[in-house]
């Protein structure tokens, strides 16, 4: 299998593997993909992924029964087999549907292994539907901070919102699930397509890595439109999503993919950039690339990753061009090169009150005696 792209798709758990498989279907053979699961039957039924059955001696291929500790241990059991899949990989997109044991337990562990290999990671975490049982929703809530800890960027997608975006709520269940996976597939393959199937404008790989490496959470927004005013309609639809999604913190960086057919006009592209750019905050960084796909003739689809905590310093100052002679994405920002945690705007002594006359507690360059909500700019 070719590794020249340096990109790897990893599905973790039953749901994660299904969504990853759908993404691979969307983008075909050019996507190198691995599925990790503890359930032999489930992993066997997923097409298009190279399946790794986790923790077989421990779980006998029967799954974790919803226990994330078992999922974590199973991933640890097969860490070596997974690591063998990582040769030549520079960026990994991990997809996991949270709420179960394998996704919640194995995904943070898999991300940790990727991190050890200095691979830049983007994790798509799908949350359970609101009507699912409380135990699944709580399990998902417990797993999210661990993903935050291990991944460079986490994109959290409530499944309810995904189905709504896909217009799938009123469809029969099987068709709705297919449609939701199709929409998700577009989001998931955004990076591949921006880099490998560029239209008018190709996205700079180094910029992409720099943005992903900034660490934090991102949101995924999608908008489609047809007709004579399709560019403006799609842009306004996207802005509505960026502005209304929860939490509604102002975006700090947006990676925008314009997915269209061969009939996309330069004037339309200008329209999109003007409409989106004018409505984003002034300090928000906007990076755009186009994706040409004849399936989209007559239609414009805008896909955006919206970062709320991104900063130029944390992203490595904008990222240098990849060294000549190296494969695509080899310019990925390595952990050691990244900027440290953003320092508080307050100097030492300011805001410390009770601790003003005592030696400061410093961690990663931050004065922990200053209230956390001040340093993290959390609005009360």
């Amino acid at each position, binding site marked *: 299998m070719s590794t020249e792209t340096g990109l790897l798709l990893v599905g973790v758990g039953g749901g994660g593997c299904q969504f990853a498989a759908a993404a691979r279907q969307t983008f075909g053979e050019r996507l190198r993909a691995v599925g990790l699961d503890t359930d032999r039957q489930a992993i066997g039924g997923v097409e298009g992924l190279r399946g790794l059955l986790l923790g077989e001696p421990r779980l006998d291929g029967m799954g974790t029964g919803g226990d994330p*500790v078992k999922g*974590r241990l199973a991933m640890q059991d097969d860490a070596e087999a997974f690591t063998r899949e990582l040769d030549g990989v520079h960026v990994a997109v991990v997809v996991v549907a949270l709420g179960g044991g394998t996704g919640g*337990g194995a995904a943070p562990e898999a991300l940790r292994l990727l991190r050890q290999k200095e691979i830049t990671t983007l994790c798509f975490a799908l949350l359970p539907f609101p009507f699912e049982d409380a135990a699944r929703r709580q399990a998902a809530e417990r797993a999210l901070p661990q993903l935050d*800890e291990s991944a460079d960027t986490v994109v959290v997608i409530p499944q309810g919102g995904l189905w709504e975006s896909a217009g799938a709520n009123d469809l029969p269940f099987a068709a709705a699930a297919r449609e939701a996976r199709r929409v998700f597939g577009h989001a998931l393959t955004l990076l591949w397509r921006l880099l490998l199937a560029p239209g008018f404008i190709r996205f700079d790989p180094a910029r992409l890595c720099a943005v992903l490496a900034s660490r934090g959470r991102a949101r995924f927004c999608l908008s489609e439109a047809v007709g004579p005013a399709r560019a403006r309609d799609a842009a306004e639809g996207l802005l509505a999503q960026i502005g209304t999604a929860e939490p509604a913190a102002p975006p700090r960086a947006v990676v925008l993919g314009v997915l269209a057919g061969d009939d996309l006009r330069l004037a339309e592209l200008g329209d999109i950039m003007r409409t989106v750019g004018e409505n984003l905050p002034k300090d928000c960084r906007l990076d755009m690339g186009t994706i040409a796909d004849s399936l989209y003739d007559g239609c414009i689809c805008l896909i955006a990753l919206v970062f709320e905590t991104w900063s130029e310093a944390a992203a490595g100052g904008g990222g240098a061009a990849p060294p000549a002679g190296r494969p695509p994405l080899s310019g990925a920002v390595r952990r050691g090169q990244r900027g440290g945690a953003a320092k508080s705007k307050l100097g030492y002594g300011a805001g410390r009150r009770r601790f003003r006359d005592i030696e400061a507690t410093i961690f990663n360059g931050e004065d922990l005696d200053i209230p*956390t*909500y*001040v340093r993290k700019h959390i609005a009360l």
Partner: protein
Amino acid sequence: MAMPPLVAIELGTTRTVVAVGECGDDRLTLTAVGTYPTTGVRKGQIVAVEQAEAGLVAALRQAEQNSNVTIGQVLLAVTGGHIQTMVNLGNIPIQGRDHLVTQDDVNEVTELAASLNLDDSRRILHTLAQAFTVDDMGGVFNPVGMTGSQLALNMLVIHGARARFENVMTVLRQASVDVQDTVFGVCAASLAVLTPEQKRAGVLLIDLGGGTTDYAVFANDVIAAAGSIGVGGDHITNDIALAFNIPSVQAEDLKRREGSALIEPDASGRRLTLPQGPGFPDRTFGVRALQTVIHARMDETLRVVRSRLDEEGVLPLLGAGVVLTGGGTRLRNIHALVQQTFGLPCMDGVICNLACASSIEPSPDLATVAGLLLYRYEHGGDDMLIRPVGKRIKRLFEGMFKR
């Protein structure tokens, strides 16, 4: 000869605890406790000797009254962000007949691993033997009789700032008590609340104190990592006071009444009114804002612990979950937040390794002093065993962590 009553002291940031343990029928019972709010201590360190002494004297008197014991000698728990750890490697060639490891080899490598030259400003608190390595085989707990050419031992060394320890000693001297031994607080607490099964399976003990958050990881019956972060419940109180511009006393009261480590679903619609006080007008604010302040602080503190454990590579060892002690266990939803942060089950550290008199609630707040009593009791009444820890090399804590 019967062992005299034992006395343990924890000079904490928010309160001073004095515990008395009495021995009888081959077991130790926690028979009396004296507590008093502490002033003059910040982040586990003495900042005003006289104020700290006043709190200590009051707690000592209360303990004496409750136990009918005159307190002269005590064991002391120490903590503070200045406490650091390092792993020191001792390595010797095995030169005996047939290259068999002997007890002498073990003693020699133990001595070597425990001997390190720290700056004069630092004082070694504990030297804790971890695992031996014979040639390339690690994880050996008793290498005597094994064959090889090299014997190595990892020694976890816990050390702190000499001046900070001296300040605590000064407070105790002025209160006319003699310190027999000093123990890192969270290590002491582990003796009282952790079971041998937990220590074997891998457990993280977090002591959520007023001035510091201390942690210790046990795995395979040995202490794998330990440390102290100079952030505690006092920081939450300070954050609240600054966020809402209210006095610390009111902030502390709010923390106890409405505080939560997670933002509760019903917090959004609720509002609190604080009446006017001297120099402060009345204030109204939302419970959600209050809980946001607390959540941000607790979440960050636990992530710092997690990050340190990640750096030391011990996170994968935690098979038996997380155990909490200290006053921070009273914060609502703290267990859920710990579970979220570590992805592991979390429980309160209940004093399970010694008996408590019926009048004493075996709460996680008393884990440190209870552990101190056990520490002394486990080592018998032999005064030789309670010399200052730094002076003894031979596996002082081996028995402590392999019970």
